[in-house]
């Protein structure tokens, strides 16, 4: 590697604007004549709308316009859709209820938008929004998924009888039943995966501008995938035709999945701009974020693990109910199915697996992908079960895992995936050494002397990233392909612009993507500009989620670079009168290998653009594009070990040590990879100890602000001990697997395994708040 090439700790190019307050987030944008939108939202979890009276609001100071669901319907704006078709096991398609951007007939969760007020200032818009009079006829509401499936439960959508969206299965039921019949030991658990709110620190925002003169729309939006937003808004929502719509996602302050989806507010801002004739900006406040950003997780699962007398796993049965909320969000169907059940084999050779998943409507905020998306749920099910089985069998949790590790690759699981590479012993060994597992019992004894309860828990996770071959996901129901595009533009002076369909909202692409150029041509990263997030600049892209920007987005850049390199070599060979096979490019120079005959990189680039002396028939210029479609998922894996101390008097848990040993394949920038792991672990510890959505029975969101929803703070967390082992994936040219979600996937079971180890009872749900842990301790006396 060079000083700035692959594997180098290069400080981030994008940091300077952020640390000096010069970031450009959507809410920082102003355009002349801009007005502000405030939404009128349902105070009820479930109600029929009797009428919406906008008369008083329209005459309030500063009001530019007030628009309702009827207006939206009248203009033919389409309903929001779920873009991934999943079929029930009886072959019937999923039951998708209608979701208009502004409700006109029925509201199905507290916070659903009913009308929008556009006014000259935010305060005036809010004043007027309070003057919009909506009459509601309240309907009974249902909050818990299991209750929504009961006979007689309130019904949300006529399209979905019994609130059942689909009843889906994966794996071989008969084979699994047979495996259980021969089991020496069966471990059973009831598992709840708590509902979470993503809470990126930047609230969502949208600024829609319709230019009547050009009949053209521009939308600035907090999006992880602006091209998908443009596609969906034009193809399905009829907001604007694709060629007349520019979507810009500038600096975006974190996403964690919640900014993948196209929400009602973006649609309405763009539409309202056309209706009112002024640019319309909306910025979510935090309570609106709690009430409208797609939530994550919310599974209830019964799991059974069958083992033989030698503690080899014979089979796994999983029965899950997933709460999808009041409407099907954009990718909501894929999360509890193809991103969940396909990972249930974990790191283990499991000869028979059967998973059944029912997805359900409830009067709650829609649920979709949140950091990890399905894979944290799968890991939690499996790793809580493995730890429990080890305790029941009286064997070390590490040894039980080791006994069942997959060691030969490729490995075909019983649940679709083919693992291409991995070394699970290596990460387990690295984590156990870093965590000083050998010294734990002594530490436990020491803690007991101080009246504290120490516990140690581990989790061996595997996940699937870089989603995925378009052909494969298409066959599984995806409405889009999951390739990525890139364009590499070399300027006449030799500097480089990378245009990518990936989107950076904290991941550091402006730096890591530039490192590919440094690696390939030996140019300084300062000579590279990474351009993303603007549909007018980048032709197309699928965006950033599922830890795909490295494995897929960078692979596309590599493919484009191959073409640039090939052309540059042809030009250089021509200029140097050499064979192009003898040309090598490094250190910013283009030379004939083994000689001192060379050209500056910039000389070759300039030659490409002057066109004065190119090989016969060659087009001028040095710019190449590529679309990369992955051959397979990639499979990051690792081992996390958590050590906690519980205060038995208060039930408060302190995480004393958290060790992560991850195999991400090849690492481009270790500093950034470590940062991704830190952040993921913090969210995982947050899920395990602190975070959890709570609704009351009427469907009011109790945790609707940071006053009630516990966000991890600095003193809730320790310093993390992170390291990597490396097996390269053969599935992409860089051998990299992806690192963005691992921390959030692997950590929750490690934390809960540690606490349950400390307190001596396994009966504990997330978040393990002091109150819950204290109550659990009471049950063991």
């Amino acid at each position, binding site marked *: 590697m060079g000083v700035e090439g692959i594997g180098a700790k290069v400080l981030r190019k994008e940091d300077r604007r952020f640390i000096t307050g010069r970031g450009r987030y959507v809410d920082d944008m102003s355009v002349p004549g801009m007005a502000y939108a405030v939404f009128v939202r349902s105070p009820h979890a479930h109600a029929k709308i009797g009428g919406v009276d906008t008369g008083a609001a329209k005459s309030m100071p500063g009001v530019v316009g007030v628009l309702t669901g009827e207006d939206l319907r009248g203009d033919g704006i389409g309903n929001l859709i779920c873009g991934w078709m999943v079929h029930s096991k009886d072959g019937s398609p999923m039951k998708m209820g209608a979701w208009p951007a502004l409700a006109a007939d029925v509201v199905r969760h507290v916070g659903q938008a009913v009308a929008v007020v556009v006014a000259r200032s935010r*305060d005036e818009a809010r004043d007027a929004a309070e003057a919009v009079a909506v009459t509601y006829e309240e309907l009974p509401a249902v909050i818990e998924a299991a209750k929504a499936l009961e006979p007689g439960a309130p019904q949300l959508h006529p399209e979905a009888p019994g609130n059942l969206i689909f009843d889906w299965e994966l794996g071989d039921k008969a084979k699994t039943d047979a495996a259980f019949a021969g089991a020496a030991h069966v471990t059973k658990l009831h598992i709840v995966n708590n509902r979470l709110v993503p809470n990126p620190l930047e609230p969502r925002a949208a600024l829609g501008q319709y230019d009547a003169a050009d009949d053209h729309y521009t939308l600035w939006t907090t999006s992880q995938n602006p091209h998908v937003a443009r596609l969906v808004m034009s193809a399905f929502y009829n907001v604007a035709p694709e060629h007349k719509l520019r979507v810009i996602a500038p600096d975006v302050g974190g996403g964690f999945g919640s900014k993948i989806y196209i929400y009602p507010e973006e649609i309405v801002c763009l539409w309202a701009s056309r209706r009112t004739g002024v640019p319309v900006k909306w910025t979510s406040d935090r309570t609106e974020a709690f009430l409208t950003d797609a939530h994550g997780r919310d599974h209830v699962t019964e799991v059974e693990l069958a083992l033989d007398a030698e503690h080899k796993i014979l089979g796994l049965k999983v029965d899950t109910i997933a709460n999808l909320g009041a409407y099907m969000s954009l990718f909501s169907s894929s999360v509890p199915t193809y991103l969940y059940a396909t990972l249930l084999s974990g790191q283990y050779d499991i000869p028979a697996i059967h998973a059944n998943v029912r997805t359900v409507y409830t009067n709650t905020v829609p649920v979709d992908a949140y950091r990890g998306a399905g894979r944290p749920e799968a890991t939690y099910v499996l790793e809580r079960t493995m730890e429990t089985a080890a305790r029941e069998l009286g064997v070390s949790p590490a040894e039980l895992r080791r006994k069942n590790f997959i060691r030969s690759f490729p490995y075909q699981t019983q649940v679709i995936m083919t693992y291409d590479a991995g070394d699970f012993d290596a990460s387990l060994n690295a984590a156990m050494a870093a965590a000083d597992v050998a010294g734990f019992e002594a530490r436990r004894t020491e803690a007991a002397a101080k009246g504290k309860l120490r516990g140690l828990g581990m989790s061996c996770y595997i996940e699937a990233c870089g989603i995925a071959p378009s052909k494969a996901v298409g066959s599984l129901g995806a409405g889009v392909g999951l390739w990525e595009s890139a364009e590499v533009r070399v300027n006449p002076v030799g500097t480089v612009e990378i245009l990518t369909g990936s989107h950076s909202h904290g991941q550091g692409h402006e730096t890591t993507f530039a490192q590919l150029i440094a690696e390939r041509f030996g140019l300084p990263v300062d000579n590279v500009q990474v351009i993303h997030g603007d549909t007018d600049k980048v032709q197309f892209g699928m965006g950033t989620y599922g830890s795909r920007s490295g494995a897929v987005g960078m692979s596309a850049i590599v493919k484009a670079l191959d073409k640039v390199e090939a052309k540059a070599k042809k030009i250089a060979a021509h200029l140097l009168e050499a064979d192009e096979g003898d040309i090598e490019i490094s250190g910013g120079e283009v030379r004939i290998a083994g000689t001192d005959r060379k050209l500056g990189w910039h000389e070759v680039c300039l030659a490409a653009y002057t066109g004065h002396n190119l090989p016969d028939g060659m087009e001028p210029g040095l710019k190449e594009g590529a679309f990369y479609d992955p051959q397979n998922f990639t499979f990051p894996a690792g081992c996390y070990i958590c050590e906690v101390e519980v205060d038995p008097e*208060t039930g408060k848990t302190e995480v004393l040590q958290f060790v992560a040993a991850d195999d991400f394949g090849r690492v481009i920038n270790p500093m950034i990879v470590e940062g991704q792991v830190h952040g993921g672990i913090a969210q995982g510890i947050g899920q395990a100890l602190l975070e959890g959505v*709570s609704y009351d029975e009427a469907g009011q969101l109790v*945790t609707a602000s940071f*006053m*009630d929803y516990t*966000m991890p703070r600095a003193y809730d967390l320790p310093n993390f001990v992170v390291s990597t082992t490396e097996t390269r994936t053969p599935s992409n040219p860089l051998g990299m697997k992806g690192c963005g979600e691992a921390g959030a996937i692997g950590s929750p079971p490690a934390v809960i395994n540690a606490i349950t180890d400390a307190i001596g009872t396994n009966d504990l749900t997330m978040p393990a708040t*002091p*109150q819950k842990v204290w109550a659990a301790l009471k049950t063991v006396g």
Partner: protein
Amino acid sequence: MYETTYHRASSVADAVRIAGESGGEGKFLSGGMTLLPTMKQRLAAPSDLIDLRHVPEMKGIAVDARRVCIGGGMTHGEIAESADIRAVAPGFAELAGLIGDPAVRHMGTIGGSVANNDPAADYPAALLALDGLIHTDRREVPAADFFRGLFETALEEGEIVTAVSFEAPDASAYEKFRNPASRYAMCGAYVARRGTDVRVGVTGAGADGVFRWSAAEQALTQTFDPAALDRLTVDAGLMLSDLHGSSIYRANLVTVVTKRAVAKVA
């Protein structure tokens, strides 16, 4: 927030006059750490805001022998860092340093907090345990008479908390167990000892707001040791209950937290 009219008072008399002119719909604005968020949520709509931050009479900390007098306009940060208070009542200074976060402590004031009497606020526990006095523009009220349940105080309309005072005890300490989300006290106990006499003020837990835990005081007066509380509990039926802490859990915390405060004193 709704529209409002801002006034900057230059003296206590000035503030009282403006409040009178607002026809009862105005509110005093001190640090604003509770009032402004409430207004932002449109849960309060005062016609007028009378800013007390620039009233000179409400500034200053005076420690005369063991008598501590703190201006109502002093911020939590100023109290936490006051060397004079630390010298005679370090537990009180420590309490101030546990309120909110550093930025909140730079704005929030003791007068504002006392006047608000949030059931999870910290000062009321201390002032009860210290037999403090609440000074207003028109009288002095013993803490025991001042705090009257959730967000209720003895304050009359237009009355301003100008200062609080107390006699520093021989020793005192505060222990706080926070609500994990809001970081307010889920239970806070202030223990003050003068000779053998012990007072215990408890905040965050009681359904009627801050209270003195008499049974604990009696036990500690006999034996000033955490173990003296081993068998004591408050009635869970009198405790607050919410998402983060049931009344039973809070009742447990009252004992645990008080014992820890005693251990700090001892």
